[in-house]
């Protein structure tokens, strides 16, 4: 069986400080020689203490950062060196749910436009988008009427559901959940985790679940 996502020897250095010509004083190694593989429909938990580079791995997989060394293969294709325009069509299969449900939603856009953004990028028509957004709202357990509200009208847990709806919009094959429940209180955490598990069972997508909480990871992961 071929892996959906295959990461090998991934390394990321960040420059620390700079002299007046912009040359860094030193390199900080945030991610050192990380390798893993993820099969379609599988959940991989990614645990570690704060500041150990988990989030960096998530951002590297999403190509929000460029790695210093190593390769990332998605569906067998090496995406490490793809330029952003080459990468864009592949982003349909690779979505993200962020940790902070406040900063991850643009306060000036209605929920309809936030959740519909990936759909718009991949060429859906207006009425298709509205129908799909309503469907997604139901999937994540929010009334579809809330579509024309702005993010400030929602609680943290509701916002995280909106973030999940956005990630699911274009039916991706892999969703990176970067501390997707850490900012929520415990009872809401359980709700969101169960929601993710249900969605995974229903749509068969793979999850890369990044968390510092071992209990959370044990709850969702296959291995």
């Amino acid at each position, binding site marked *: 069986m071929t892996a959906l996502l295959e990461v090998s020897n991934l390394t990321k250095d960040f420059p620390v400080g700079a002299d007046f010509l912009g040359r860094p004083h030193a390199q900080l190694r945030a991610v050192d020689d990380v390798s893993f593989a993820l099969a379609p429909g599988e959940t991989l938990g990614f645990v570690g203490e704060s500041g150990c580079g988990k989030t960096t791995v998530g951002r590297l997989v999403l190509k929000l950062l460029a790695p210093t060394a190593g390769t990332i293969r998605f569906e067998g294709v090496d995406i490490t060196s793809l330029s952003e325009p080459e990468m864009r069509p592949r982003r349909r299969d690779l979505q993200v749910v*962020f940790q902070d449900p406040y900063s991850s939603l643009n306060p000036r856009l209605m929920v309809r436009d936030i959740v519909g953004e990936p759909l718009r990028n991949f060429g859906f028509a207006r009425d298709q988008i509205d129908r799909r957004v309503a469907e997604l709202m139901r999937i994540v357990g929010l009334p579809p009427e809330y579509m024309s509200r702005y993010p400030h*009208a929602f609680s943290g847990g509701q916002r995280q559901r909106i973030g999940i709806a956005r990630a699911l919009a274009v039916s991706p094959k892999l969703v990176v959940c970067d501390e997707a429940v850490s900012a929520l209180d415990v009872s809401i955490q359980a709700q969101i985790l169960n929601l993710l598990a249900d969605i995974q069972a229903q749509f068969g997508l793979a999850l890369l679940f990044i968390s510092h909480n071992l209990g959370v990871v044990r709850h969702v992961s296959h291995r």
Partner: protein
Amino acid sequence: MSATALEPTVTRARSDFWPKFRRNRNAVAGSIIVSFVVLVAIFARLIAPYEYDETDILFTWAHPSAEHPLGTDALGRDILSRLIVGAQVSLTVAFAVLGITLTIGIMMGMIAGYFGGRLDAAIMRTVDIIFAFPDIIFAILLASVMGPGIITVIVSLSVVWWPGVARLTRSLVLQLRTELYVDAAIASGTPPFTILLRHFLPNIVAPLIVRASIGVGFIIMAEATLSFLGIGVQEPRPSWGGMIRDGIVSLRTEPYLALSASTALGLTIIGFNLFGDGLRDILDPRIKDR
């Protein structure tokens, strides 16, 4: 949080704008002056009692009277009429410069802040070079190279004013660059220019509006300066700066020309500055209600 208790569709920033505006004395006073000047400028030809270039050689330097409420100038032209048409000239220049500099400045600032790297360095060094000259002196230099006229004024003031807009825009973009919704948009496959228009622009307009309304005061002042020096708007078209220059020669004996033009200029600038300050108090989230 119960869903029924929530206010739908309107953002908070917008819903309490008007109550705050009404309570802010600067904003109210400024907006009264600004709307008065703008209305006068729009309907200048209808309001002005005489043609602005209608001379009367037998009736020069007339004192204020029922016929000429502010008197006449050295060529017997009605000062009030020239003042009114002068408002039109000033505001035309101001809004043309504003339109040009906001377009160029916001575009350059967003590109510099979002893409970074060499593009950023190239744009910001250009900005630094223009900033290195005192703005009025640089505008005078450009105007004297290009030759006088209203187009010259617009172009030279645009050249000195866009860097400020670009710098402000860039710093605002850098602040927003770390917001996760920007990363989410990239991960959703949104192209860069769509991200700039959809996610950045709506979140940075408030400070730019404040900057623009305060900038109008500077631009009107600079236009008057250029016209005062004779390298701005040319006769017979009236300009407040030119009228002050013509009037200053005979300030001791016939003060009406210089004084009325100066008063119009001063009031207009104060109006735009009050309006801009008021807007800043209202729109800046860091300034709380007193």
